[in-house]
């Protein structure tokens, strides 16, 4: 076989979304990719003498007959290699470089890590679907799933230190919108001067002792939050809201109400309910959930280039894919 150095090999997104090509247009399972990868992985592993028990069947073993003509393991192996050999090997290479890097960094995946991750993954499924059902439906085994999970936990631990975090705040808001050509208007809109006058009046009413909830109902034009006391939930500067919300919140204390400030499409007044550094225990889960979702996002974002760089650093010789 040719001795081919695959430095510079383009990663085809296994850490991007390995399932992304899992369905045909009509949504039916198009290619049971992981099954193919597993089949090929077994074969490739056999080539390197790291042989799972199930692949120790002799290539000459007959696995089926058609009109008494045999189909042998070697036939299946050849077919699997041709179909997905390169992709499967790429996957194994990535697993290997992640394992090696984790080992260098002293990172281990404990049984508790796996148990917790499994709990999270089960929680994401909507009843009556179960993980076992889904695995069965996609011809996957729990050991293979756990192997994927283990590598993802390693990757998460390797990258979590690189994730930049931002202050979190639980905020409520009153928003008054201005007219903008081309805007998809969903409520009353105003000129800039009108909007500023309205939000200023709202603030005056608050200062005079009127209740926040009542002022939101009376003034706010933000449809999603108007019926919920203006609750924006827990946000940080990457939450998709105008930066004015978190910039203003940074200068407030819990419970304090801001003066009016400009946002992209109007004006707002906010009340800071709590912050990541100062919130009641009853909000722990909510803050943890937001932080965890953001960390997962960032790790997912960093993963493709990180895994690619690990491969560039490693000495990899690929005999399968010139």
């Amino acid at each position, binding site marked *: 076989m040719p001795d081919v150095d695959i430095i510079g090999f383009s990663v085809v997104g296994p850490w991007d979304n390995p399932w992304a090509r899992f369905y045909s247009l009509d949504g039916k399972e198009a290619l049971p990719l992981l099954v193919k990868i597993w089949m090929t992985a077994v074969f490739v592993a056999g080539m390197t003498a790291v042989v799972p028990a199930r692949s120790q069947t002799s290539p000459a073993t007959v696995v089926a007959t058609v009109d008494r003509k045999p189909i042998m393991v070697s036939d299946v192996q050849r077919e699997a290699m041709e179909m997905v050999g390169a992709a499967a090997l790429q996957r194994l290479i990535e697993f290997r470089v992640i394992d090696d890097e984790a080992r260098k960094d002293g990172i281990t995946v404990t049984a508790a890590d796996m148990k917790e991750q499994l709990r999270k993954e089960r929680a994401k499924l909507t009843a009556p679907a179960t993980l076992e059902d889904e695995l069965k439906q996609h011809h996957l085994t729990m050991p293979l799933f756990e192997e994927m999970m283990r590598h993802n936990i390693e990757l998460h631990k390797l990258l979590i230190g690189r994730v*930049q975090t931002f202050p979190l705040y639980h905020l409520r808001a009153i928003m008054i919108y201005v007219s903008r050509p081309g805007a998809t208007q969903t409520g009353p809109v105003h000129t800039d001067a009108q909007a500023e006058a309205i939000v200023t009046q709202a603030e005056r009413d608050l200062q005079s002792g009127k209740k926040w909830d009542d002022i939101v109902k009376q003034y706010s034009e933000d449809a999603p939050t108007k019926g919920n006391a203006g609750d924006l939930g827990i946000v940080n500067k990457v939450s998709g809201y105008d930066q004015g919300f978190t910039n203003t919140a940074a200068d407030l204390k819990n419970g304090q109400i801001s003066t009016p400030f400009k946002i992209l499409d109007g004006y707002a007044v906010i009340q800071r309910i709590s912050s990541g550094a100062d919130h009641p225990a009853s909000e722990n889960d909510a803050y943890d959930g937001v932080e965890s979702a953001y960390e997962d996002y960032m790790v997912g*974002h960093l993963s493709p280039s990180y895994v690619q760089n690990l491969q560039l650093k490693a000495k990899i010789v690929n005999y399968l894919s010139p």
Partner: protein
Amino acid sequence: MKLRYRLSALVAGICAFSALFTAANTAHAWSYSNTGQYFSTTSGSYILDTDEWGSTAGVTLYYNNPQNWDLYCNFTGGGVKAYPHTQVNTNISEGSYNVWGYFNASPGSGTWDLAWDNWDSNGAEYMIWENWGGGAGPLGSEVASNVSISGAGTFNVYSGNDGHECISFLQTSTADNGTQGGVSSIMAWAKSHGYTSSATISNVQFGFEVSSTSGNQNFIMNDIQFGW
């Protein structure tokens, strides 16, 4: 800002597992639907992703193909919940940028933006906001206003960093449908102002970044076509 959500393999896998194919929504004449958080389907060069990365709330993605779809959702609270989008993997080298797109969208009510999300090979993110609603705003602060870019439009430009550079070009003439040209010129502007070095555009995405909704809402992509 648009958070390009690159899922961990496991998370994506689980979400793909949760794909449940239901009868078409006849009111919208959709042929297919899916209720998974991270459903993805491909047709030709076009990829459709639900990309509900900031929420576990049930959503339904109705679709005929990756260029014609509808995210039916109900999101409350802060933070971007989903970026349902159409994507093509371009890998266009600098000097060959000639990306354009025709789009026709119908957003629902809430806090959202309708935006392009282009990534270069240096990891920088370039957004073009065609329209938005509610309290949405781009990452960072405004660095230039009323910038006229040939063939692309006039923009207010924002720059921010959440671990990577994100530069957002907000159209001053917003619309839910139209043709966005001049992506090459936008990139050239960004380069000449020091926001990027020579790079390849790895992929191009276009969709709705949805943070919150006023009850159940449909965010519909009637059509999106990329050229490059």
